[in-house]
């Protein structure tokens, strides 16, 4: 409980536990300062990349040597939250690198784009490690509000403004649900800290309604049925680098906290959650089958992946006998997903920035012959999203389904595996379009080679293969 007597000076553990967030904050300040003089502008990119790399370095130290609860239990720098933090920083770096030279009409204020992206990353880190609902709420808003503006960043385009507004209206409503839910839980129990809620009895009707509202708002953030309908529109209308960031980072942050607070839902709701997960997977996969727009196709696929991850939440509620099993499965799945989806959305951004006529699936025709490197990477990402063996996506799915099986949710895992097979249909369609279909008539876009984008594509592809072939490395290093 917050009490004036508890508030003493900052300790060195506090600083060690929040060092990654301090790095990102420093990056925000430096990037802002770099705008005061034209001569300093190139330093902005340096501040962005430098602060995130420093944050990753500190997070890696925390993975090996966690600082535990800091700031009087408001935030916990566990090795789990530090692993999530690494993923958020990677997501931001991937999205940012693909976004360079993406904005042509808005080139004058790209600085705002970078700043907002850093703020959003900071919010994710705060969410993943929060140990009470207040810290989580501040993190959630620090994540969301910059993303509303980022979605509408191309404000000369109606599609972008519309995506931003839709995301804002629904996001603000979800925040309202979360707040009213937390208020009801607080009125029932008198505490907002996760530890306090863990010990309190959550059986009263007030607390149950509150828990349901909190769950609903989190379901919105991670785009799960029945709160998934905004995803295709927002993903389609937002600038593609922002979509990249949303698809990877936001989802990871939402699940990081959802897994932490899953206990507020009664164990008997595991079956319901599993049913929601299966419906989400079905809607995502079947929706993706009929899309002709590449960004919408990926958006439906993102919904399907959120459904798969929700199975993990159901498994942890149903009581997987290995207590850390579901969370580890989610972390592995999300680690593979950040690099796979980050690479896939990022390559779409790259092709768009090069002036390819996008973003219809049709426009990928003949790309395999024209730009084999990009096409090969995109094919690899598609295979990993589809859960093809030897890719990170496959092992992620394997861990998720096996943790669901251990929790005795056999029917959910069986339907999940079947739906993953359906998903291969549209992922293979993308690969087919890339390599097999003849190129349409018409002029070609000039090809621009960019070292940074090539590099990050290579890193993503390498990570996808590495996670698929050598899972031991990640499991030992991050999940013990």
């Amino acid at each position, binding site marked *: 409980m917050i*009490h004036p007597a508890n508030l003493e000076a900052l300790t060195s553990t506090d600083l060690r536990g929040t060092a990654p967030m301090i790095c990102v904050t420093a990056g925000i300040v430096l990037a802002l300062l770099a705008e005061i003089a034209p001569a300093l502008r190139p330093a902005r990119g340096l501040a962005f990349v430098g602060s995130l790399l420093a944050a990753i370095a500190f997070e890696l130290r925390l993975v090996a040597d966690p600082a535990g609860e800091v700031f009087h239990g408001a935030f916990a720098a566990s090795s789990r939250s530090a692993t999530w933090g690494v993923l958020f920083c990677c997501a931001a770096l991937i999205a940012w690198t693909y976004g360079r030279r993406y904005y042509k009409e808005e080139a004058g204020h790209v600085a705002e784009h970078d700043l907002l992206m850093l703020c959003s990353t900071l919010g994710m880190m705060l969410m993943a490690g929060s140990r009470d609902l207040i810290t989580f*709420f501040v993190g959630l808003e620090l994540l969301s509000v910059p993303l509303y503006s980022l979605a509408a960043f191309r404000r000369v385009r109606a599609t972008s403004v519309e995506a931003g507004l839709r995301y804002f209206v629904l996001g603000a409503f979800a925040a309202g649900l979360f707040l009213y839910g937390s*208020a009801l839980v*607080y*009125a029932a129990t008198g505490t907002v800290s996760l530890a306090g809620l863990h010990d309190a009895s959550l059986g009263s009707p007030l607390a149950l309604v509150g828990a349901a509202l909190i769950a609903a708002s989190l379901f919105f953030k991670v785009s799960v049925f029945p709160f998934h309908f905004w995803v295709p529109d927002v993903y389609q209308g937002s600038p593609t680098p922002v979509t990249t960031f949303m698809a990877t980072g936001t989802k990871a942050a939402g699940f990081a906290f959802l897994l932490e607070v899953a206990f507020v839902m009664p164990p008997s709701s595991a079956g319901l959650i599993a049913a929601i997960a299966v419906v989400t997977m079905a809607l995502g996969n079947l929706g993706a089958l009929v899309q002709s727009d590449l960004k919408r196709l990926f958006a439906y696929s993102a919904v399907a992946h959120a459904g798969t991850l929700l199975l993990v939440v159901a498994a942890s509620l149903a009581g997987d006998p290995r207590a850390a099993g579901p969370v580890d499965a989610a972390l592995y799945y999300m680690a593979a997903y950040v690099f796979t989806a980050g690479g896939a959305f990022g390559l779409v951004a790259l092709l768009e920035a090069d002036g390819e006529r996008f973003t219809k699936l049709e426009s990928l025709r003949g790309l395999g012959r024209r730009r084999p490197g990009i096409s090969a990477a995109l094919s690899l990402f598609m295979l990993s999203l589809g859960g093809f063996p030897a890719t990170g996506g496959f092992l992620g799915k394997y861990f998720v389904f096996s943790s669901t099986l251990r929790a005795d949710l056999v029917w959910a895992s069986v339907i999940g595996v079947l739906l993953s097979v359906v998903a291969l249909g549209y992922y293979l369609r993308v690969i087919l379009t890339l390599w097999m279909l003849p190129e349409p008539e018409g002029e070609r876009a000039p090809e621009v080679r960019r070292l940074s984008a090539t590099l990050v594509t290579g890193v993503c592809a390498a990570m996808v293969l590495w996670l698929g072939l050598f899972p031991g490395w990640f499991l030992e290093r991050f999940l013990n």
Partner: protein
Amino acid sequence: MTVANEQLLILAGLLFAIGAAGFFVRRNLIVVLMSIELILNAANLTFIAGSRMHSTAAAPNLDGPVFAVFVILVAAVEAAVGLALVIALYRRKQSVSLDSLTSLGD
């Protein structure tokens, strides 16, 4: 005369219901924003009522009021960004209605 905690909770519940109904029924974006503000204030009122329910004279429970302060702050932030987005929409479409959001889709 003092207000009972239950009365506060019921009032907050009504505020939430009005806000949620407004959010789903109204098409004007400004009214939708106002409805969201009502929901946030319903949460604030519940936090204050909760604090009163769980406080004693010796040990005040301040979690609720602290949460409410954060909510007020964030409500201002959201209103600023939301109104900016509505202005951006008005410049494109000369309308602030949800029905004018038509440019996305397959």
